[in-house]
């Protein structure tokens, strides 16, 4: 038994556990409405925009490019949302175009002078690289998201079911719609350095998608998404330690197993 917990003696593993316990529920919570609103393609495109955000930061010579990445993602999300709402073109096409531009522009700018390899961590991330100080940042982000959820969940949900009924009830439809994508943009950009843009969307979507297979109310939907996320996070971290493989992808694989398991049990 003590063998199983031998990783506890390492500071970086204890910090990583803290990160997983904060980060996975944070993404799982947001993921519930991303999944319910059929916005997984949207959040995927948003993740890809991180490349362009970083590239702009690098080209502009900004020392901490994370801020540029964050601001760019928020602008990108609002713009994408606006076009999505205007119904000028089909939603998935618009998002596909945005996603491709986000990746292509980012790669073009970052590949100048053959420096692309320096930015590999952006693609795959590393949960184990998190510091104790950054745990606080994650804790604040989790509390902030829970606070927004408490105040705005009904608005978000009302708009997603029917914008017309929401408007008749006096809910500010445009504000709610934009606030939600900005919240997703901020959290995704915060998490991307530890998860990587290739996998961030999986971590956002999978806990909620698994939960949706079996949940029978908004309460069980939320509780199960967080429980599945925590289970996969802790198990994935442990498995990755003993097998000497990357942590983020291991967590995603556990989440995928949970998804397929619940899919077989799904309510029908």
């Amino acid at each position, binding site marked *: 038994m003590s063998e199983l917990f031998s990783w506890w003696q390492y500071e970086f593993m204890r910090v990583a556990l803290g990160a997983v316990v904060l980060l996975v529920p944070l993404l799982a919570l947001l993921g519930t409405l991303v999944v319910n609103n059929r916005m997984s393609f949207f959040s995927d495109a948003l993740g890809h925009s991180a490349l362009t955000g970083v590239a702009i930061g690098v080209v502009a010579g900004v020392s901490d490019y994370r801020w540029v990445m964050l601001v760019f993602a928020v602008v990108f999300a609002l713009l994408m949302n606006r076009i999505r709402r205007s119904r000028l073109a089909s939603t998935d096409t618009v998002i596909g175009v945005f996603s491709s531009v986000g990746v292509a522009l980012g790669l073009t700018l970052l590949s100048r002078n053959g420096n692309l390899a320096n930015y590999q961590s952006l693609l795959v991330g590393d949960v184990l690289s998190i510091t104790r100080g950054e745990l606080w940042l994650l804790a604040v982000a989790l509390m902030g998201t829970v606070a927004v959820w408490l105040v705005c969940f009904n608005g978000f949900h009302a708009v997603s079911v029917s914008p017309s009924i929401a408007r008749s009830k006096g809910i500010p439809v445009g504000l709610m719609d934009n606030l939600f994508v900005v919240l997703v943009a901020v959290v995704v950009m915060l998490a991307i350095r530890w998860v990587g843009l290739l996998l961030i969307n999986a971590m956002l979507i999978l806990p909620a998608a698994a939960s949706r297979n079996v949940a029978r109310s*908004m309460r069980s939907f939320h509780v199960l998404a967080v429980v599945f996320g925590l289970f996969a996070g802790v198990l994935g971290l442990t498995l990755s330690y003993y097998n000497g493989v990357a942590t983020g992808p291991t967590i995603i694989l556990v989440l995928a197993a949970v998804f397929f398991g619940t899919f077989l049990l799904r309510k029908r």
Partner: protein
Amino acid sequence: MSTCGLHCLKINHITVRVGGQPLVEDVSLHAHCGEITAFIGRNGAGKSTLFKAILGELSHEGEVVFSGHDGIPAKKKPRIGYVPQSLNIDPGTPATVLDLAVTYTSRWPAFLPIPRRLRREIEAHFAKFNAAGLLDKPAGRLSGGELQRVLLAIATRPHPDMLILDEPVSGVDESGLQQVYALLEQLRLEDMVILLISHDLQYVRRHADRVVLLDRKVLAKGSPADVFASEAFRTAFPMGGDRHE
């Protein structure tokens, strides 16, 4: 006559253009509290568009004014209950009918455990619409008639000054429609302006207080007897009072 605070809805010269084309043109009318004002007309006549303009969802020319008994525009924003023509709720959504009711009619976050008192209040309200038994059903698995009753219950909590009901063209069977009409008769007594788009001309003839025949413009308006006797009505509905146009 009723004594509600917001006595009258005045629609003055409403025009809605989409891509330069007027879908609704220069519509003016008054609707009163405690009365059912029914809108009839062929499909595509602009009835739903007019309703969306009244709701503020579509930009329009002209104005929509609520006024009290004295005719002075009301200061407070009117409460609106809206039942859309159709609502495609994702069949896979985990939301129950209770979750929808909490979402739209309370401040309590619908993802938290719902306090007993709130549930009882919602149950009591839904019971009036013969929908209390639906509260724990998945919202995406309701029949057309059940969904209508649920939407009507949501639209009337809290008590609205104006109820806007866009009757579904299909998907609700005859007994479902009759239930909705019976509920409207009750609601009419509860001091609210009721606007109804209906495809059931028999019902409109018997129960509406005022009728507006619309085809982009107002072709005829007034009491059901007047409108049904008008030339414009005979042209629009050569078959007369059959249920479907």
